[in-house]
């Protein structure tokens, strides 16, 4: 499956990935409208961590052995058979936050302002190339084929 590869050497901490992720998951998918008019604002599913000059973008690793799928009490966390991505069915999610408890990357957020469900990267379900990868100005995020054996 294709996975987003994170390269901390080239991340410049601009957070354009966060911005474009939010736009991709907004209602209008238009950047100015999404930011200025939509309320609540869509949550970005990627998070840039920064410490001094070091920074990198972190999002769901779509683990082969996904701990969030194990932990989900309602089966909202599931794997998309086509893309191999781990997706959260936000309609089924009841906000128990077991997934937040087990994700070793802290990649799952609580969408308190919006759906009250768990929010995380969905590999831009349906798009050729995820929004964060497409808009990274320094190619710190790339979308690459990963051998079976994935993270964890």
């Amino acid at each position, binding site marked *: 499956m294709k996975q987003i590869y994170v390269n901390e050497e080239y991340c410049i901490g601009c*957070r354009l990935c966060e911005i474009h992720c939010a736009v991709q998951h907004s209602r209008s998918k238009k950047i100015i409208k999404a930011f200025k008019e939509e309320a609540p604002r869509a949550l970005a599913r990627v998070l840039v961590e920064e410490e001094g000059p070091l920074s990198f973008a972190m999002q769901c690793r779509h683990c082969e052995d996904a701990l969030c799928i194990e932990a989900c009490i309602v089966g909202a966390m599931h794997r998309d058979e086509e893309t191999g991505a781990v997706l959260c069915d936000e309609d089924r999610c009841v906000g128990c936050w077991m997934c937040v408890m087990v994700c070793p990357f802290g990649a799952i957020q609580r969408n308190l302002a919006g759906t009250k469900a768990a929010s995380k990267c969905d590999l831009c379900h349906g798009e050729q190339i995820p929004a964060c990868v497409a808009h990274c100005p320094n190619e710190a995020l790339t979308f690459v084929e990963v051998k079976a054996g994935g993270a964890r």
Partner: protein
Amino acid sequence: MTFTMLTPEFRIERDQERCIACQVCVRQCANDVHVYDADEDWVYSDYARCVGCHRCVTLCPTGALTIRESPLDFRSNANWTAPRIRGIYKQAETGGILLTGMGCDQPYPIYFDHLLLNASQVTNPSIDPLREPMELRTYIGRKPDRVEVAQGDGGVQLKTRIAPQLMLETPIMFSAMSYGSISYNACLSLARAAKQSGILYNTGEGGLHRSLYEYGPYTIAQVASGRFGVHSEYLETAAALEIKIGQGAKPGIGGHLPGEKVSADISRTRMIPEGTDALSPAPHHDIYSIEDLGQLIFALKEATNYEKPVGVKIAAVHNIAPIASGITRAGADYIAIDGIRGGTGAAPTIIRDNVGIPIELAIAAVDMRLRQEGIRNQISLIGAGSVRNSADVMKLIALGADAVYIGTSALVALGCHLCQKCYTGKCNWGIATQDPYLTKRLNPNIGSRRLANLIRAWSLEIKEMLGGMGINAIESLRSNRDHLRGVGLNQVELDALGVKAAGIA
């Protein structure tokens, strides 16, 4: 804020209807121009700090920003222009030498823009580069006076021993830019692109970083007056050596890398203590005559077993022609001449803008003089100093160069916006800086790709132009001034270039 007469040079226009306060501009400006106000949830800008590098404009996801030169008008004055007035304000405030970066920006005549190339028609058909092979390959090095061959069983054999040559796939090389004046990522981008394009890049006077030794066959190692990083492995690894006497942006004076920019890595590469200023003295303190130069040339050849070409880089000054003649006779394999428009990481503005001569005149003068003396074959000529496009390459070769060095063009390909603030070490594009926050911005994968693209694009254009002229090899263009015509030049200038006026067959 302390009082200053230096009002902002630039004004930032932010379209508040497009601005989404995402703060990318805030994070990306190394000069802290943009500030986010959380109470008002908006971004405002401190114009005084803006240097016009366009980083914010380029990265803004909604295109909300643009930069304008400050519309502050002085009363019209053809003599006392705004930069001249501001120069005095600055010196009155600081008492120091005004510094700047990149090449001379004054409106002296640009001879490239007064020269036009020929094309074939009717009497002499053009060549289609898509159908015929176009030879751009160029050899840099001393060529023999005559060539003797022997006919034998194995066919024709070459009897004459030829001096070491550098082979370039296209007559363009990357000019000398030291590790220290530019970032490691920039050096790596140049090295990789040189390898990919089959050309060479130049270490500049900062020595060679260990991890770049693998690009040795594509490297020209410079030996400058500070002798930074010069040791036997450095000489062994490179494909050619270059003694730097002068540089077009600051002829006659030395170089200075401030101690703040001498990090641990640079300290190791240059072989100087960390945090100390790296001063390159004006003359090499062991070269006080042309004979001394000859001695150093041969010392380097001895040290490398006569296996590599040894060249000399000089700035284009008034008596460039006799200097070049002397260098040829001293035994150099090539001369690199850097014209007044050549770039730099830091130089006094007054010298950058007032000292030296344009490369077009210099190359023409040297080429014609060496031919006159019958020694043109003994040396290759490399021209540098603001070669901005493939037409400039063609024109310089037609005026007499064997190949060109590009510096500014290469950095612009990497992202430079010519804000001329290289000397501050705060290059927002990650090029002329050692700050780890900033050097990350130049991803060598992207940088080398962009440079290789540039070389490829120019090479394709050169092939097109050559074909259009009915030539199929770049060496047929060299010194072939009949393919040039001047426009808007007086007779003295035409004679200096050795070129006829347009309209004259």
